[in-house]
């Protein structure tokens, strides 16, 4: 058929249901994630600590074996502190993974002016953001609360239903603590990459926000003899919230409520910045 005879034909295949259209973005973005060897290796490393924790749980319930290797049975205790440490370690790895994965999600679309191609389809901005952030959210879930719950289930299997019932709140803390950290990391990484538009710089900037914010916060505390510097330290705020969720005693520079408010405020600011940048067109004056 001659080219001029070709005319517009609408898509006749099966349409994805409106509620699940954001999953299309997830599918394609997720595929890109494993094209990088560094990211694949990093993701693999993220599972080492949960495996180690699994071994600890097994050992804690095999007193005979521990006695054979000359270790006291009381040395390993599986309690709220154990799960707090697990989440702290995985939280650090989640941050590193975000520094590599997060900036590449939105910045190429913005840098190459690809957003009109998304938004000329029946696809809202919220769905676009949900699709892009779901890549990080699901990947980070795989290394934080999902292995955490598996560890909890294994421990419950060994210790019995009484332990599981008494410590059910720990499972809730694992999920809530992980979700807030995932939300912060995802929104921060995407907001930075949307505003910088340069994937590599956005990654370095994420690193800088974390370390520089913590350092500047401490400097404010030292120079102005105040505690308000902690509000700039995301890691500190998160540790405060986690300590409270897991019932761990910690040195309170600021109250837990303040830490929660600050974290939610950070999420709000990042979301606002994202919504300002993610538009079908941009007027450049």
């Amino acid at each position, binding site marked *: 058929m001659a080219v001029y005879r070709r005319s517009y034909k609408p898509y006749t295949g099966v349409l994805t249901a409106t509620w699940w259209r954001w999953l299309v973005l997830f599918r394609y973005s997720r595929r890109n994630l494993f094209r990088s060897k*560094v990211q694949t290796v990093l993701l693999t490393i993220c599972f080492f600590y949960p495996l180690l924790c699994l071994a600890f749980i097994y050992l804690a319930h095999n007193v005979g074996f521990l006695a054979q290797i000359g270790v006291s049975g009381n040395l390993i205790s599986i309690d709220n502190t154990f799960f707090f440490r697990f989440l702290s370690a995985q939280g650090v790895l989640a941050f*590193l993974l975000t*520094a*590599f994965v997060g900036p590449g999600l939105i910045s190429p679309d913005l840098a190459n002016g690809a957003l009109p191609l998304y938004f000329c389809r029946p696809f809202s901005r919220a769905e676009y953001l949900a699709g892009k952030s779901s890549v990080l959210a699901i990947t980070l879930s795989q290394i934080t609360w999902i292995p955490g719950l598996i560890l909890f289930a294994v421990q419950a299997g060994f210790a019995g239903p009484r332990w599981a019932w008494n410590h059910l709140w720990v499972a809730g803390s694992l999920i809530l603590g992980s979700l807030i950290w995932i939300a912060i990391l995802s929104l921060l990484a995407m907001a930075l990459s949307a505003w910088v538009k*340069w994937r*590599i*710089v956005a*990654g*370095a*900037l994420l*690193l*800088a926000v974390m*370390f*520089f914010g913590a*350092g*500047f916060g*401490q*400097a*404010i505390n*030292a*120079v*102005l003899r105040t505690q308000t510097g902690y509000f700039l330290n995301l890691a500190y705020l998160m540790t405060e919230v986690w300590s409270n969720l897991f019932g761990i005693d910690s040195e309170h520079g600021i109250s837990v409520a303040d830490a929660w408010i600050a974290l939610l405020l950070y999420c709000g600011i990042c979301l606002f910045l994202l919504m300002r940048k993610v538009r079908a067109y941009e007027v450049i004056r």
Partner: protein
Amino acid sequence: MKTFWWRQIKAVVRLELKKTFFAKRGLWIYLVAALPVFLFMAYAMAVSREQGRMTEMAHEGGKELTYQDLLAVKPGMTNDEVVALLGKPDVHFYWTEHRHTSAQRIEDILHEKYNYSDGQHSLYVEFVNGKAETVMLGEGSNLIRDSIVFAGVFQFFFLRLGLFFGCLGIFMNLFRGEVLDRSLHFYFLAPIRREVLMLGKFLAGLIATCTIFVTSEVLQTTAFLWAYRPSVRNLYLYHNHGLEHAAAYVGITVLACIGYGAFFLIAGMFFRNPIAPTAVILIWEGINPFLPAVLKQFSVIYYLKSLSPVDVPTPPGMHPVLALLISNSNPVSAPVAVLGLLTVALIALCVSSLRVRRMEINYTTE
């Protein structure tokens, strides 16, 4: 030939300086350099306000007080005894608490708060039913003590984070920025030796970082000293080594720019993504106190810490591992530190020159 190379270096420096100082991508570096200045400006304002408040309190009080007078107040003294000793309080608050002592009894408890000041220190005394329960003697701002805080901010924030990330932004951009802008081939096609180009770019980065961060350091020192009376300032500057310390801080800033600059120049040539080298250098510099003596020498912070004029004391009760991070173990003498840092930077520049000779551009992989 050397004159020709020198002219080429100057031309590259001229071109690069414009790009470095006015690049949109580098605007955040000015913010990084300005943040500690804002911090010390806030400090100066807080100290001035505090000093003004205490001077006002001291003038308003009925009796001229000394530090010894303030020290004489102890818990358990009655308010009459305190008034007899220090006179009528400069600031006086009181309220009555209705406390349930038993099921049906309510007792009225009188709380009073007296504030005194000698112009430099403030005393807060809280009385419960006429007896001093809490006595707090607030130390006023002290330049010598606060100079240790300044040293702490310089060592742990300005050097390790501000200057570190500033150098990362400028020096990694020298080659990586050109590759991302797809403009490096213009330099490579010009009749200029690549080593000369590399040196020109390094010098441009060095001039930019030194200008930005030395200015920041000078402004920080000025803001820090601004709040104090001229007599106190002169005493610190001319009799308590303040001027020497300020000069040392400027020198350390320049050396840090050279050291970190050389490291990030190599990183920009070897790595496409700066996250990995940044994280590695940050961790390497962080774990420096734990490294063996030989490995310590291959870092920048080791020499910079040795040159720091003020040692930051470790707070009491700090974990020994964290204390080690703050402490300056096995410091080297100043000439050795300067020479060592310049040698490390020179080695880094030699590696960079080897790399740049074999560098190939492939914009499609970016």
